[in-house]
């Protein structure tokens, strides 16, 4: 019973994952790897938070076909990416290109990290610094401590 249940669960999980992928025949293993990487990294514009690999939209199917055919014609990964960007803009890329309009996007997290590190270091330095106390106040405090010593 338990085994059957497990089988059903696994079946339900696997079925939709395979539903959208057509069986394309590739000339070489590298080409297939290129194809898989491309459809992972290209966005489906219809269902915007899915990539081409995960989407069952009509357009995603067409763009997978386009990707496949371009690779079969001997085009490089970069040529496929350029083809998509020329038509749909940078938005199709899940991994945006590194250029002037995306510098902030790529560097932002590191800049933020550096800023936070700077704040932390500054705070630690401030904590390390010995506190300057007025000599008179110090003597007074000492006196108070001595006075409050429990009597024997």
């Amino acid at each position: 019973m338990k085994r059957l249940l497990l089988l059903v669960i696994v079946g339900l999980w696997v079925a939709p994952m395979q539903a959208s992928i057509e069986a394309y025949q590739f000339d070489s293993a590298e080409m297939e790897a290129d194809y898989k990487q491309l459809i992972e990294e290209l966005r489906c514009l219809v269902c915007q938070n899915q990539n081409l690999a995960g989407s069952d939209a009509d357009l995603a199917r067409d763009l997978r076909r386009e990707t496949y055919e371009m690779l079969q014609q001997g085009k490089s990964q970069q040529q496929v990416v350029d083809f998509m960007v020329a038509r749909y803009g940078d938005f199709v890329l899940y991994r945006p290109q590194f250029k002037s309009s995306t510098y902030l996007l790529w560097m932002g997290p590191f800049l933020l990290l550096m800023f936070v590190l700077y704040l932390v270091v500054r705070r630690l330095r401030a904590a390390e610094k010995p506190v300057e106390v007025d000599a008179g106040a110090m003597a007074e405090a000492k006196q108070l401590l001595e006075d409050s010593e429990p009597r024997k």
Partner: protein
Amino acid sequence: MIRFALPLVVFVLMVGLLGYGLRLDPKKVPSPLIDKPAPAFSLAMLDAPSRQLSTADLSGQVWVLNVWASWCVSCRAEHEVITALARRNLVSVIGLNYKDEPDDATRWLGQFGNPYTASVIDRDGRVGIDWGVYGVPETFVIGADGMIKYKHIGPVTHESLEQKILPMLKELMS
């Protein structure tokens, strides 16, 4: 004082930023094709499949390309607006019948009326891909120089026709 003011300033900035984000429509992806040459096509015409219409036939004039399909529900809502545009006889309104069955498309035009100067058949959607179409209906304005001047994603409303498309057409034709 700054101890209390700083979180408040950060909060206000965040609210402003998020509020601005809420007003953006993530479905409207700016087309990289604006001010680029219109992708060429030569496709069979819907009412005369033996004849071809190509972008070269339209060169030298301002024209509108409207991407539509009989299966597209919002094309029906847009239909009367496209008809209103066509009635003005300002420019050629070419329909790109996108990923449709020609029989269904012809029936659809018969039922609702045919506003198009001509419709061409893009059955496998390849021309659509060249034009960066991802959500039918889409409408493009092409200048006499063959450049794409404007792209409207989704159904054209009377408002966007009056405020955006018609002024743009008049400017391009003057």
